[in-house]
């Protein structure tokens, strides 16, 4: 494909499309003549004895098996298959029959069958203390609270696990955890990007919209339509307009001497690429300059797709126009609650009380502000879209109108030919990709690895799914049974036996399946940057419970934000606001929060589907020395001494259990208490000695990992 694909078609030969591959090449010979392998130049050349003429050039010859396969294929008529991702899933797919009755729900037989075929044996179930920590981290991103742990570990109810899962799914913290995946995709940040990276101080309302949508379990089809085309919905609500800020997370260039049109187009193309990556698992960005090297997308088809996005009002202006004066969903809710409280006050004739004044002040303080949004240009000032030759915006080719690339399912006639229609098409029954891609993203969030590993790419260069039937079965259930409910999908996954396996690994499993592709054991991966911060604050009791609100600036070292002379200071948040969850930390593209960068957050200039997880000494320095973690160790030590019982050993066990939901083993306890006594001997106070023990707990591998 490198030599005879979409970019290079050496000797005028490209195998990308059936029609081009069957044409005569430059030599006049046809590479492939269906049913006639002996006359096909392709076969002749791969068998050639002269290495100068033998294909593939400069490489080892193909094996006999490979040659036979190609001959057989041509002999049978050289049928062009369609890549699996573009074929609709089989409606009749169902969990396979397996020997025995391993499993709790429909997911398990798929997994069991595959692991057996790989000669793997499933691990035993995870311990309850492990399971509740895992479920809580996966659903709300935080460790479970003491009450929940107590309730679960002491319960003898058969469905106690399900109760916990339901309780977690109902938590307001659910949206905070799941929003972070979405914000990476939406390339959300609190600044505009490029050189000046001017702040976008009001865009957080969109972030809150996302959190709220997850909390409300907004069906994913609606979630899609509102973000891509909320402005085009008839009688749209303010929230639907706010949702369109999704595509205003593109960057705006405020630098002198730059052409607004150039950067407007950069934003429009980014919207297209981002949309295709998120919903279709398609890496369309290549096609800006040329036909896709591997996937069957033609150069002009990119611009047909771009036409859907090319008709909005924003134009890289310095004021980030257009904007709308909006409240966040939560602000509106608060405002209406306060309003009814105020009116109750009045009816009590209590209008001058202090409470009234406080409520009134609060009511007044909640004011809408200008959030960048998407608006469509009126018909009479619509933009033309043309093909840019080689991707250069100054070199215009033919004019195109909004259209879907031919390798994807057609758009139904009754959908409008605009962004709204595009959004409806993405979540229509005819489009098999969206549900697969989304289900795979959710699966990846939970298991740390997608059924298709390349979550961002389902094209011909993607990795094949490890469990194709399971992916299709889940995708269909997501649409039909779960009615696009993310929460139901998550619950179904978590109720499977597969999910509940212990993550300890046997030597045999490690040898046969080092990366746990076949899920014969529970998965194990490092927590996200946000989770690592949130967990330390939660365990030590420092975490602010506040949900929603504008972005905050927790302490960071002096000088970090000293980025450019033009704009903005890091104004340290005070009180509770310095202990909010990581998702609320102010996100400036040129300088994201330093401890989060080290734990692999993207800088959010572009859509990122999967964070890479590294393991570095700089991370150790953060969890040992960053003032946030030092403060957490101190607070945890405080809890241990004051609430952990009389003896240091009891106090240590208390702290350990608070962190990991289980008591330390005897030797672990011995090591920790040895450290404590060592510190006392070195003239440390009890508090300082316990602080070091707490620091150890907050740095344990088991804690940094989701196990």
């Amino acid at each position, binding site marked *: 494909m490198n030599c005879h694909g979409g970019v290079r078609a050496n000797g005028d030969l490209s195998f990308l499309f059936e029609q081009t591959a069957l044409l005569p090449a430059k030599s006049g010979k046809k590479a492939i003549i269906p049913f006639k392998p002996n006359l096909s130049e392709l076969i002749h050349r791969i068998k050639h004895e002269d290495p100068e003429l033998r294909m593939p050039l400069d490489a080892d010859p193909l094996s006999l098996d490979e040659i036979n396969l190609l001959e057989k294929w041509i002999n049978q008529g050289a049928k062009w298959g369609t890549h699996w991702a573009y074929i609709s899933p089989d409606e009749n797919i169902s969990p396979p029959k397996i020997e025995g009755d391993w499993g709790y729900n429909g997911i398990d037989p798929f997994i069991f069958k595959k692991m057996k075929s790989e000669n793997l044996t499933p691990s035993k179930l995870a311990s309850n203390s492990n399971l509740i920590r895992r479920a809580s981290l996966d659903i709300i991103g935080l460790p479970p609270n003491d009450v929940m742990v107590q309730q679960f570990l002491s319960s003898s109810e058969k469905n106690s696990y399900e109760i916990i899962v339901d309780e977690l799914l109902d938590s307001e913290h659910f949206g905070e955890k799941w929003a972070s995946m979405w914000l990476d995709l939406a390339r959300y940040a609190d600044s505009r990007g490029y050189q000046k990276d001017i702040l976008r101080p009001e865009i957080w309302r969109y972030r809150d919209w996302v959190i709220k949508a997850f909390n409300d379990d907004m069906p994913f089809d609606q979630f899609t339509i509102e973000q891509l085309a909320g402005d085009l919905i008839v009688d749209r609500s303010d929230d639907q307009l706010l949702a369109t800020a999704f595509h205003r997370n593109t960057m705006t260039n405020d630098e002198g001497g730059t052409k607004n049109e150039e950067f407007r187009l950069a934003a429009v193309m980014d919207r297209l690429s981002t949309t295709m990556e998120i919903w279709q698992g398609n890496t369309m960005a290549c096609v800006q300059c040329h036909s896709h090297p591997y996937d069957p997308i033609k150069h002009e088809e990119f611009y047909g797709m771009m036409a859907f996005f090319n008709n909005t009002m924003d134009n890289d202006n310095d004021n980030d126009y257009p904007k709308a004066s909006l409240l966040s969903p939560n602000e509106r809710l608060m405002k209406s609650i306060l309003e009814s409280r105020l009116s109750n006050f009045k009816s009590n004739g209590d209008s001058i009380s202090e409470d009234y004044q406080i409520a009134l002040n609060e009511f007044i303080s909640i004011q809408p502000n200008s959030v960048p949004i998407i608006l469509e240009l009126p018909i009479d000032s619509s933009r033309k879209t043309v093909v840019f030759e080689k991707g250069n915006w100054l070199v215009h080719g033919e004019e195109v109108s909004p259209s879907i690339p031919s390798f994807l399912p057609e758009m139904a006639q009754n959908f409008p030919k605009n962004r709204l229609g595009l959004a409806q098409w993405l979540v229509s029954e005819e489009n098999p990709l969206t549900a697969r891609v989304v289900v795979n993203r959710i699966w990846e969030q939970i298991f740390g690895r997608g059924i298709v590993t390349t979550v961002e790419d389902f094209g011909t260069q993607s990795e094949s799914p490890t469990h194709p039937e399971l992916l299709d079965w889940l995708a269909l259930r997501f649409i039909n049974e779960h009615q696009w409910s993310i929460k139901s999908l998550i619950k179904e996954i978590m109720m499977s036996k597969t999910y509940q396996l212990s993550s300890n690994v046997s030597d045999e499993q490690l040898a046969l399946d080092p990366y746990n592709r076949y899920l014969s054991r529970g998965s194990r991966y490092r927590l996200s940057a946000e989770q690592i911060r949130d967990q330390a604050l939660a365990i030590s009791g420092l975490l602010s419970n506040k949900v929603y609100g504008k972005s905050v600036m927790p302490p960071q070292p002096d000088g970090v934000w000293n980025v450019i002379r033009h704009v903005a200071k890091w104004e340290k948040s005070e009180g509770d606001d310095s202990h909010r969850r990581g998702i609320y930390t102010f996100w400036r593209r040129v300088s994201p929060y330093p401890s989060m960068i080290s734990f692999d957050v993207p800088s959010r200039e572009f859509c990122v589907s999967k964070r890479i*997880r590294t393991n570095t000494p700089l991370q150790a320095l953060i969890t*040992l020395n960053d003032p946030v973690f030092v403060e957490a160790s101190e607070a945890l030590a405080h809890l241990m001494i004051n609430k952990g019982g009389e003896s240091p050993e009891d106090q240590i066990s208390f702290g350990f259990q608070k962190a990991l939901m289980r008591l330390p083993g005897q030797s672990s306890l011995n090591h920790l208490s040895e450290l404590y006594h060592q510190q006392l001997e070195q003239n440390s106070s009890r508090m300082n000695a316990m602080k070091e023990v707490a620091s150890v707990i907050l740095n344990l591998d088991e804690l940094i990992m989701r196990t």
Partner: protein
Amino acid sequence: MAEKLIKELHSKHENHLSRRQFLGSSTLGLGAMALGNLSGCSISSEDELRSNFLNKTGLHHVPKAKNIIFLHMAGAPSQLELFDYKPLLQNLDGKECPPSLLEGKQFAFIEGVPQMLGPQFSFNQYGESRSWVSELLPNFKDIVDDVAFLKAVKTDEFNHAPAQLFMHTGSPRIGRPGFGSWVTYGLGSENTNLPGYVVLVSGQSIPSGGKSLWGSGFLPSLYQGVELRSKGDPVLYISNPENTSRTTRRQVINTINKLNEIEHNSSNSPETLSRIAQYELAFKMQMTVPEATNIKDEPDYIHEMYGTEPGEVSFANNCLLARRLAERGVKFIQLFHRGWDSHGSNDFENLHGGFLKRCEEVDKAMTALVKDLKQRGMLDDTLVVWGGEFGRTPMQENRGGISNPFKGRDHHGEAFTMWMTGGGVKNGITYGETDEIGYYPTKESMHIHDLQATILNQLGINHERLTYPFQGRDFRLTDVAGDVIKDILA
């Protein structure tokens, strides 16, 4: 031996990445799998497949340079006042610029018809190479026979931030990996106790391209440049909290590691072992970083030579620090010295103001750095690169169409001067030439992508094979361009 190892890695890699890799292998080549083992860091599970192929296997050929020290003069110094001597321009001083030089050009500030501006300082020829150097660099003139001048470097960008990004990431927009990220991704680091890609900043605040100049972009974060700060912790969070002594820290890490070993006994997870190693490394770095950055240790004659004053934020200190880091095996040492912009629009940003001061700040120190590397025998395998993100116009800048109160020049990317030394580059040569007023190249123009390709070449990397897959395509530092300029190589 090496070939055998590479072959083995090839097949291992292809087995793992089967289809994706099989189809793309001829262009992906070693580059994609050459992720070095930086500081012994690791990438977990699946990503490891694409990543953790150790160290030297990233080399595509025998390197001439082990390390690189890149001295970036952010703000863009005027080549016409330093190296590119144009006597004719003196004759044109004050004359109106001919329209042929303005047609179809885009300037950052020049409007209407500006006047030509002659060289503001006098020039002389030095060394056996008879290289022209202006009076502003009285020290540097001593080392002209050690360097290769590149007099017709060309960039595509005419604003500071995009041009700096272009120089260091190969793209004018933020979001791509920094030069050193690519290099450490490809080669790893010699020293496991120090970061492989270190950034030192002096002058007025940070360069306008911001931290994106040394971010890891879409590469794993372990390849990001680590800024060694002059004030506060040299590396963020390297110091223990108050009340935690080094003894206590040792005990704390011992305890963490003992508990992690216990954890490993039951989990059997390889990543737990890796974490134990990371904590040991972190502990070592807490020693090595302060040790490496403590320039006070240096003898007096060295301080004299560089003009260093320990404790200050200065280019001189950073030059000395760069030598110390190179000695310790840090692969990519990036210096930024900011404040070169000289438009003539105020009493600071002009050729007789800030520019003059910058020359004083760098002349002695950069000369000392080259001499010092040479006297230690390090110049043979350390590549030193000097230059701004673009050059300046032969016209006087005239924002708003009126003349500026001070002498200054606008941004100019068609042709400007950089110099290189060491690391297998020819000594005492000049590559590239500009026309009589220093506006356009007349021969041997060298594009930024050529410069990048050439630098990578000296480090043992084929720039076309150092790739990383992102958003469906394989990205390179040199995008789809760049030629190694063999004429400047020894």
